[in-house]
């Protein structure tokens, strides 16, 4: 009973974090057809932005969430201008493959710069809200886990409302589903691209702050989140927002269940086996569809 409860709690927390990181990759892939390999360093930079804010200024920790979001939004915009925009519309360039490599290059550069400034040592980061709450005599949740789930779900709901209710979201969806029709109806696609990459990075930055107390702040802190997000988006079917949400919680559940009932070291290998099986059965992922049905 306690193990089941623990698995459920862990699924919600981990799934929400995965969704927050992976949804950005889905947005960028849906609108730009770029598998954004810089999403992992956005998680790491978010953590460093928050760490620096707290250490240098002593501002309350919730402000560091906003700082991290702003810093990573700007870094996402910078990634667009440096790694993606120069490739758009170039004749004879395999855009998807080249952008995959250039965003990977950005990730490596950002990681090296952070390493140069802060060094390789893992830096501790306090939970946003210390303490824990007991559910039963054996199972307790840290307040920080509750904040993780709440902030992540809040950000996802906000994103959903932005995409479905705002005119800007309408433009993003239109570009993702039918680029030519969207442009012919007067949407400047590049304005949509740059904001999409900024939002995607900011979501990862927020995730980075939330993950920092669990995994520390260090230059490679984005590697594991990138790997997990890649598994989620491939499992979901590239470009599907709804599929990404489902896939995040399924993957979150699987890794929680394996870790609790078996061994935490087996969680990642088991995920690879699952993703392999899914791709053999459904090459487009669980919700993958042709281009016009994306987002």
């Amino acid at each position, binding site marked *: 009973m306690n193990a089941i409860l623990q698995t459920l709690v862990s699924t919600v927390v981990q799934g929400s974090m995965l969704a927050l990181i992976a949804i950005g990759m889905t947005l960028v892939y849906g609108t730009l057809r770029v598998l954004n390999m810089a999403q992992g360093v956005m998680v790491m930079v978010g953590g460093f932005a928050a760490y620096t804010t707290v250490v240098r200024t002593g501002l309350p920790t919730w402000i560091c969430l906003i700082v991290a979001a702003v810093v990573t939004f700007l870094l996402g915009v910078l990634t667009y201008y440096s790694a993606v925009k120069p490739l758009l519309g170039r004749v004879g360039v395999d855009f998807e493959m080249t952008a995959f490599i250039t965003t990977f290059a950005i990730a490596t550069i950002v990681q090296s710069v952070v390493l140069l400034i802060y060094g390789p040592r893992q830096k501790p980061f306090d939970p946003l809200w210390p303490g824990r709450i007991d559910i039963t005599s054996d199972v307790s949740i840290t307040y920080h886990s509750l904040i993780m789930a709440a902030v992540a779900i809040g950000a996802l709901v906000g994103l959903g409302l932005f995409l479905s209710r*705002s*005119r*800007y979201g*309408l*433009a993003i*969806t*239109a570009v993702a*589903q*039918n680029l*030519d*029709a*969207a*442009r*012919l*109806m*007067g*949407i*400047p*696609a590049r*304005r949509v691209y740059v904001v999409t990459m900024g939002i995607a990075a900011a979501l990862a930055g927020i995730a980075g702050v939330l993950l920092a107390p669990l995994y520390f702040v260090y230059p490679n802190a984005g590697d594991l989140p990138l790997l997990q997000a890649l598994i989620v988006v491939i499992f979901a079917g590239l470009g599907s927002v709804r599929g990404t949400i489902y896939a995040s919680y399924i993957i979150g559940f699987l890794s929680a269940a394996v870790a609790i009932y078996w061994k935490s070291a087996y969680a990642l290998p088991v995920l690879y086996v699952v993703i392999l099986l899914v791709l053999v059965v459904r090459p487009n992922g669980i919700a993958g569809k042709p281009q*016009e*049905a994306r*987002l």
Partner: protein
Amino acid sequence: MVQVATAGQPLLRARGVVKRYGGLAAVDGVDFDVLDGETFGIAGPNGAGKTTLFDVVTGIVGATAGEIEFAGKPIQNASVHGICHAGIARTFQLPSVFDSQTVLANVLVGAQYGQGGSWFGSTRAKPEVLARAKDELVFVGLGARAGALAGPMPVFDKKRLMIASALATQPRMLFLDEPFGGLSPSEVDELMVLLTKVKARGITIVLIEHVMRALMALSDRVLIMNQGKTLFQGSPHDVLRDAEVVRVYLGKRGDKDKDDA
């Protein structure tokens, strides 16, 4: 939109338009004028370069050579959205809508972003834009389906939705790529009535069409293309008498309607 009184003047001028894909010239030196307020029909065998010509004019693909002027301004190097903001709208041969959005949201895209202006101003929700989108839906006869999802709709509804979205951008000129293709005879009649109403609003229409009955009835002038070149340009009345058009495109019984879209 304020219509400048220029009826009868060329609204669109195309000179020596060429589009080459490697060694293949899909459009090979086409000249034509479209006069303000007229309906200009384009026909020709498959692979004649009609859709490529549309793609070049609307900026989807760049011209290899040639000049295109719209309302006196060159547009051959303008961006796709810039061409839309200048006053050109277009529909596609295959029904092309935003599948996961409602019918109203589809039209709203055109109404919201079709006029240009500053980008951040254009992303604000405005009640008059929503009202205009609804008006265009009523205009094409989809007023009752505003809340339905666009993806699962039948072909005729999608074609009308594309026209509503294009009209919502408030164009001076509307390009229609085979609007009658795949429609039943009664739907063809209905769409002809709709396009006549569009024309009555003072919007210049350019349409590609294989359904000769519709092309002949709607067009003031026609351009027949073959292998990227102009085969014939003139009144729809004369086209049926042109021996070369009959031989290349219409076939022996050129006086009979050809409804093989």
